[in-house]
């Protein structure tokens, strides 16, 4: 029994240490490479970002108003949100330039700034005209409320322009008039987006439902991108890309490396202190810490959660929670042992006793996570997720990993309390 427990303990310890080494140093598995730390994504303040500078290009002699600037800022934010760049910022530089800051850096999955710039500078003016005359606009952008997409069995995407009340009436009037035309070639209309024709179709019957549908040959990505652009709104003033730049981290060019090194050093220091103070219990705690850091890095990398400065502060808070929980367990264990219990009984009672407190401390942290997540603030989403994932990992490590390792170790060393703390038998039969 003892030998089996010892082998199992050593096996789990070896797995934890090997996994931690693999996670932090990276391992090559044939052509593949397992290196979560290399793909871990940092936020703009720690790992850098990208900037796109867009210049306002109004028609000659036209002044851009403050309302238009505000409207454009909202539209740019909406387009970025729709494309998944929720942590972006849009700032007005001078009077005729926007700087759009994107959380795109060397570790990002998507790095094509040209495509993002195109999403931003597309005006989004969708309208329907007669085929014969591009200037004969039948349905204007103002009459279209939103755009919906639908795919058919062959993977083709159809666009549906959903009309406003005014647009519905106009569409019915226009389609009735066109469908009644005698000549077949006069029944055709064209759909344009920013002067680019996206579809041509004939009107056979009046449209009374309040929407106008047309098919396209667009791929899923292209169709969704266009729908997102159109749904975010039409820019009142045209934009032109001036520059696309990769920008270093806001907290300094070395910020990410410094931060990771700090976490590494403090983990190593705490492992050393725990072993020094708590002996075998400390060794188990040190293994728990290693398991926590490795598991956290893997989960954050796998889920693609971006770590920014605020997220790092939350990770530090959870790290403190983990340390204090481990120390709390050890103190309870020592207290039970000093009360006269043997090692196994002391371990069992101590863990039962501390569960409520450790859970309650975790709950105090959890409410913070819930509040951040429920706020719906896009900029804080990654902070909230990093916080939540770290909290879950810490709780699981304290409740499962630490407990399991302790259970195995007390089986092996039940008769050797000196491995845990300095022991002296008291005259009353207790331990001191």
């Amino acid at each position, binding site marked *: 029994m003892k030998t089996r427990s010892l082998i199992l303990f050593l096996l789990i310890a070896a797995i934890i240490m090997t996994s931690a080494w693999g996670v932090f140093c990276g391992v090559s598995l044939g052509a593949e490479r397992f290196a979560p730390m290399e793909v871990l994504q940092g936020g703009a303040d720690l790992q850098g970002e990208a900037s796109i500078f867009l210049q306002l290009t109004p028609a000659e002699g036209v002044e851009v108003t403050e309302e238009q600037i505000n409207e454009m800022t909202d539209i740019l934010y909406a387009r970025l949100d729709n494309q998944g760049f929720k942590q972006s910022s849009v700032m007005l530089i001078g009077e005729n330039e926007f700087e759009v800051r994107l959380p795109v850096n060397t570790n990002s999955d998507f790095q094509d700034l040209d495509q993002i710039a195109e999403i931003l500078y597309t005006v989004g003016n969708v309208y329907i005209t007669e085929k014969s005359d591009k200037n004969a606009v039948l349905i204007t952008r103002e009459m279209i409320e939103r755009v919906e997409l639908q795919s058919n069995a062959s993977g083709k995407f159809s666009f549906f322009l959903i009309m406003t009340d005014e647009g519905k009436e106009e569409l019915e009037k226009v389609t009735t008039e066109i469908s009644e035309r005698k000549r077949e070639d006069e029944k055709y209309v064209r759909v344009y987006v920013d002067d680019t024709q996206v579809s041509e179709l004939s009107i056979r019957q009046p449209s009374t439902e309040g929407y106008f549908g047309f098919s396209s040959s667009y791929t899923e990505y292209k169709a969704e991108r266009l729908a997102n652009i159109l749904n975010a709104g039409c820019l009142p003033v045209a934009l032109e890309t001036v520059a696309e730049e*990769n920008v270093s981290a806001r*907290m300094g060019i070395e910020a990410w490396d410094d931060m990771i090194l700090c976490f590494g050093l403090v983990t190593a*220091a705490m492992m050393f202190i725990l072993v020094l103070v708590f002996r075998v219990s400390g060794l188990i705690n040190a293994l728990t810490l290693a398991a926590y850091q490795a598991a956290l890095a893997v989960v954050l990398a796998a889920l693609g959660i971006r770590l920014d400065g605020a997220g790092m*502060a939350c990770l530090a808070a959870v*790290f*403190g929670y983990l*340390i204090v929980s481990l120390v709390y367990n050890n103190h309870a264990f020592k207290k039970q042992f000093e009360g006269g219990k043997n090692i196994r009984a002391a371990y069992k009672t101590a863990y039962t006793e501390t569960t409520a407190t450790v859970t309650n401390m975790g709950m105090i942290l959890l409410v913070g996570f819930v509040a951040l997540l429920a706020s719906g603030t896009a900029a804080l989403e990654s902070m909230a997720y990093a916080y939540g994932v770290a909290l879950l990992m810490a709780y699981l490590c304290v409740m499962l990993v630490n407990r399991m390792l302790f259970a195995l170790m007390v089986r092996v060393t039940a008769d050797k309390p000196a491995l845990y703390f300095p022991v002296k038998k008291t005259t009353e039969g207790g331990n001191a």
Partner: protein
Amino acid sequence: MMQSRNLKLGILVLVIALVAALIFGVGLGQDFTDGYLVRINSANAFDEVTVNKIYEAFGGKLGELRIQYAQDHYNAQLLIHVQKAEQADADKMVEIALEDNEGAYLRGFDTVTNHNGAAAFRKYTFLVLVVYLLGMAYVWYRQGRSGGVAALAGSSAAFLLVIAIQSIAGMYFSEATFMGVSVLTIVFAQMMIYLLNDSADAKAGLLAGEDADTLAKKAWIGGKSKVIVLTAAIAIFALTGCVMAEGIIRNFMTAILMGACSAALMTVLIGLPTYVLFAHKYMLKAGAKKKAKAIK
């Protein structure tokens, strides 16, 4: 009574810090305010020496100063964000850049309008309050009214202290130093208060006729190691950062250190005394009421 003295001392420390902060002024960083952008371009890459020289020349003079390296297809660029500046400052920056980079020239000096800055700050402040109130409500739920009041007093004092210290130190609040450090300080204070209250075992102590000081002593004996460990873990982390890193990241680590220390200090000076004094006053009162009711 020792605890009353601690509480008074805690309030005094807080008031002094807040008054000093009001005098020095709370500095909102560029994440929340408008500012200026100086763009210096060159065909050659800029090095750290240039950046350090600009930090030395303008640090602390133009509000929050943030310098980032940028690179487009053809040019290297320094993006220098400041909160207040004049054309002369931009020209001076170019002069400094020219000392180490011959091709440096001023690409632009423009105002920056951060449309969402003020709204973001208001939203973050509201969120910090929500985090604080929810944490307090949970401690109240687990440890009763005394625990809730202690969490309310202790964590709000810790939050105000960390804001005040950062202001006195002339630090600017960015998203990370405001949101991250505030959340860390509040949850730390609430965890510490919960742990100390838990160790006090107030109900049993009051039944045994213990006074507030004895309860506090018991709480401190039972909970001090955890409070110290919690503070020490973060202090080691933040101090490592302060020693190793430079510039803005060092400020961030300093803010984390301030957060952990404020939480520990206010827990001991305000959270714990509030708990034992409140428990002593109201639990005994409630007990006497119950007794009187039973006699009736």
